[in-house]
């Protein structure tokens, strides 16, 4: 496979034959045409590596991550770094985290990790932190301030109630449609940490926040939701340019709330349906979202994907690389003041014409 240039991919993300086989997301942060400050990073998420027994793992989920890693390494120019958006593991077992990290170790360059609920609830993130370090942190890169939050915490009383085993707690949280599920939250202490972290940042510095759950409220029943989203958003509102990138939802979502642009990442494992396909409850899908068509189950990687992010002018353009599907570019439009899907027209319930069975 030939290398794919950023320019080619961004100018014609949907039509490139080579790119059409890629399931990553690349994000470009740009500061103006040909500026030295422009850069890209890749964004892989939700691999849900599942141990069957011993060194045997669910093949399908392994293949998604293996492919994302291989194709991220083919991007040209190379992304400055890679974000992993959470849920390396399905049940948070050390064997699953280790197996996922072994596959991810094939990536060229630095990888920054986000905690997902499937990594966390068996031991409250202990093994993950032992392998990867703190679950919330920040760093600066070429003039952009990056913040990583652990947004999948929930009520302390629920987390610390008397569980027979940590795996019992994990299995409660691992079930997306659990009627007894608990809402995700960033929590008081982490929000206080965020407030202090942002205090020292000038308001014209572009901010990119990575979380696993959406820092907005879309559908509570499946935790497409963070309970204290508004309080986190309030801390981000003083800044001129903010982007929130999140995983968990396994689907393209796009939104703009005030100065904050929101983009969701595809999963490398499997797609979730959009909440509107569940008849019994209402959801609040942002109108800017152009939904993907339902997946064709006969193509294993259909409706999975990964992204590369192109940063320019402190804004993020997200290129979704979608195997067995048409690639998408959702880019910030200065005149519109929000991200726009360059391929498909947005609107309530909008989606491209159905081309799959």
């Amino acid at each position, binding site marked *: 496979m030939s290398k794919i240039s950023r320019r080619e991919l961004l100018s014609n993300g949907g039509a490139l034959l080579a790119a059409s086989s890629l399931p990553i997301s690349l994000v470009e942060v740009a500061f103006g045409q040909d500026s030295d400050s422009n850069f890209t990073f890749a964004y892989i998420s939700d691999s849900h590596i599942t141990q069957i027994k011993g060194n045997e793992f669910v093949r399908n989920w392994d293949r998604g991550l293996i492919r994302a890693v291989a194709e991220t390494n083919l991007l040209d120019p190379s992304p400055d770094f890679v974000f992993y958006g959470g849920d390396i593991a399905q049940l948070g077992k050390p064997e699953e985290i280790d197996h996922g990290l072994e596959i991810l170790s094939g990536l060229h360059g630095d990888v920054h990790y986000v905690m997902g609920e499937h990594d966390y609830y068996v031991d409250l993130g202990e093994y993950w932190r032992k392998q990867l370090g703190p679950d919330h942190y920040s760093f600066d890169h070429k003039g952009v301030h990056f913040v990583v939050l652990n947004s999948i915490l929930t009520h302390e009383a629920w987390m610390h109630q008397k569980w027979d085993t940590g795996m019992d707690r994990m299995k409660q949280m691992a079930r997306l449609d659990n009627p007894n599920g608990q809402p995700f939250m960033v929590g008081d202490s982490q929000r206080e940490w965020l407030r202090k972290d942002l205090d020292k940042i000038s308001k014209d510095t572009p901010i990119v926040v990575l979380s696993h759950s959406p820092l907005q409220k879309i559908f509570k029943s499946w935790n497409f939701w963070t309970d204290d989203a508004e309080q986190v958003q309030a801390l981000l509102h003083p800044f001129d340019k903010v982007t929130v990138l999140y995983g968990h939802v396994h689907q393209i979502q796009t939104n703009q709330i005030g100065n904050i642009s929101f983009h969701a990442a595809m999963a490398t494992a499997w*797609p979730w349906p959009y909440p509107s396909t*569940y008849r019994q409850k209402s959801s609040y899908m942002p109108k800017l979202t152009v939904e993907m068509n339902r997946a064709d189950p006969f193509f294993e990687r259909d409706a999975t994907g990964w992204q590369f992010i192109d940063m320019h002018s402190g804004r993020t353009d997200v290129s979704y690389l979608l195997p067995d599907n048409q690639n998408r570019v959702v880019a910030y439009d200065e005149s519109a003041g929000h991200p726009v899907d360059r391929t498909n027209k947005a609107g309530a319930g909008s989606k491209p014409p159905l081309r799959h*069975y």
Partner: protein
Amino acid sequence: MIRKVIFHAVSLVPLCFVGLASPVQADEFDDEDLERWQMEYEVVVDEGEKLFHGGLGNRNTVSCDQCHPNGANTHPETYPKFQQQLGRVVALWEMINWCLQNPLETDMLAADDPKMIALQAYITEERKGAELEPGKH
């Protein structure tokens, strides 16, 4: 032959009178029956919900709800329909078997297997209210 039919018709007359005289009508049901039938149905839906959420015991542990939370995107109201990938018109249970064999990497269930009935009961219950659109893509 005609004589035989007449004989049978005449012989049934006393039975009809007996039937009319009885205070009980055939096929009647009351609220208690409805309640019991609903309960019988809900037991099967609940069983389907458990099977759908990891209760099938398949070795690779992948469960139906991983791709279909609340049974979403199973669109039971569109079956039977022509399934391009299989090249023929199929019923919902056949697509469930496809999922069992592929993502779940386990054995098919017979069409009348109580587990198959339960899976369909759960999926359809979660889609309650959707208009029937057989054949739709």
